[in-house]
């Protein structure tokens, strides 16, 4: 295609209107290039979105329609009642509430304490600070399995199994290394002159943290909160290990339980269409939050990638 454009360019150059023609052929080439880029962007968007589209469409079909051969795109008659039906078959409302509760409380704890610890790393000088910070970062590498077994045994001993405490309480101890890192990086970007000015005016460390730094850190706090909420909402291993009672499940393990029973037709037909509806309902809140917080989120992720 590019060769063709060059050929046309040459031909016209022969006609004598040199500069205009060269410009034309270059812009023609560029147009083709742009067109190709758009084509790639649109088709890869389609590839990325296809699983979602398929899931949503499947969730609106009748159970039997999913097994039709060849597979069909659109549901014959959209079955919106599939969604309420999920609530009848499994304790979906309870699980949603459980997930929301665990995610909100642990997000609160994680963000608050990560901010305090980040403040310590960013603003104070004390022996072993940098070593402690490196230790903090290196815990990101730790495979959960190394701590999971003793934690399970410990929580079993103090009677925390099958409660939300193992999912929530650890969040109040600094959250995660990643959050601490994120908060520290942001605090470092705030000029220390602000702290010093406040100090001269008689503010203590707590006051500087709460009234100077935190109000300036609303974007990064929002980012931290959204990221933590999402990862708590999606967390699978911890609830799976620590919760037993079905009514205490969070959505992540609830949906797995549902998946395990969906294939067995206990009454009439397999319930994969309802399973698809459940997947949609578990993903939807995350996508809504993403759209609300997109600006912060992208900024925060990008910040985490900048070396510091």
């Amino acid at each position, binding site marked *: 295609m590019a060769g063709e454009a060059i050929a046309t360019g040459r031909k016209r150059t022969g006609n004598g209107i040199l500069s205009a023609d060269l410009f034309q052929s270059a812009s023609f080439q560029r147009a083709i290039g*742009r067109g190709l*880029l758009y084509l790639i*962007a649109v088709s890869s*968007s389609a590839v*990325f*979105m296809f*699983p*979602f589209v*398929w899931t949503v469409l499947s969730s609106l079909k009748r159970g039997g329609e*999913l*097994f039709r*051969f060849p*597979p069909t795109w659109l549901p014959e008659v959209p079955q919106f009642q599939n969604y309420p039906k999920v609530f009848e078959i499994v304790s979906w409302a309870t699980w949603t509430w459980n997930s929301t509760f665990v995610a909100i409380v642990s997000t609160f704890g994680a963000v608050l*304490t990560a901010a305090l*610890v980040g*403040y*310590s*790393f960013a*603003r*104070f*000088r*004390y022996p072993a600070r940098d070593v*402690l910070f490196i*230790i*903090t970062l290196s*815990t990101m590498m730790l*495979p*959960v*399995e*190394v*701590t*999971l*077994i*003793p*934690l*399970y*045994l410990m929580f*079993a001993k103090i009677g925390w199994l099958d409660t939300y405490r193992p999912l929530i309480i650890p969040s109040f*101890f*600094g959250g995660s290394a990643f959050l601490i890192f994120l908060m520290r990086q942001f605090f470092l970007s705030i000029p220390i002159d602000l702290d010093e000015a406040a100090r001269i005016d008689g503010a203590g460390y707590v006051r500087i*943290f709460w009234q100077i730094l935190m109000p300036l850190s609303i974007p990064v706090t929002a980012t931290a909160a959204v990221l933590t909420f999402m990862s708590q909402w*999606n967390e*699978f291993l911890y609830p799976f290990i620590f919760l037993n009672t079905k009514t205490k499940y969070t959505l*992540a393990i609830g*949906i*797995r339980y549902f*998946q395990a029973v969906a294939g067995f037709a206990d009454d009439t037909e397999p319930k*994969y269409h309802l*399973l*698809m509806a*459940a*997947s949609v309902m*578990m*993903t939807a809140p*995350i996508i809504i939050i*993403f759209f609300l917080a997109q600006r912060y989120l992208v900024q925060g*992720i*990008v910040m985490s*990638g900048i*070396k510091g």
Partner: protein
Amino acid sequence: MTTKTLASIGLPLPRWMTNLRAKEAIAGYIFLLPWALGLILFIVGPMMTSGFLSFTRYDVVNPPDFVGLKNFIEIFSKDRLFWPSLMLTFRYALIVVPLSLVGALSAAMLLNQALRGTAWFRTFFFLPHLTPIVASAVLWGWIFNADVGPINHWIRTLTGSDNAPGWFRDPDWAMTGLIIMAMWGAIGGNTMLIFLAGLQGVPQELYDAAVVDGAGLWAKFRNVTIPMLTPTIFFNMVLGIIGALKVFAAAFVATQGGPAYATWFYALHIYTRAFQYFEMGYASALAWIFFFVLFTFTYVQFRQSRRWVYYAGEVD
């Protein structure tokens, strides 16, 4: 800063200054306290416990029984799933990570072309990353359905034959299915956003200078973009590999490690030994081996990085 330099050359500091330093240090430690406690209670303490347990037999009911290196010897010599699961996990990581890095960089470069609707494309690429892993395993399970799934339908239509992969049901294809699933979530995710920021941080002068020297598209990419992005590539690579080696939920929900142990990842092996067989000592030994392997692997990457990562701000 000045006090630090003064102290480092050994000048005695005035008393009020050291007092202030002490006060600052104490306050710093107090703010650090939640994490310090968390580190001890939920990380270091448990690590030491599992280190101890790895030298014992422990079935939860009876007290731990010290057996020395028996668990480790058993793992390396008798455990039929140890090497396969470790190798399989590495194979998975070494396929998923490079492919998703290339994919994410390509996607980021595409989004960096100032196309109209870039914000939309970025969102479309990013959404899969937001999907909870469990939900993604459930929905891909359906898309990869061997009989009535859309993918196999297309494969049959395109090839004109009835032979299509069994995906999660087929030992030869289950891993490929998981890799595709992981790439779907990884390409447009954080990796892409970080690359995009990295691309936007490459100074335009470098490209201009390259053009003056007669560089084409490929030469600019090879000699400007890639070197300037090496820190970003390194960051994404290290995190990507650590994440991929830890894979659990995706495989657990989509394939349960099967069929025929074809997706029996290392984390699944540990989980099964610990929470299905309640061999806590043995599983702790497995976990510690994993930690050691991960640590070594990451360390080697950092060592290697000095050869190929270029930090623009660094003074040689």
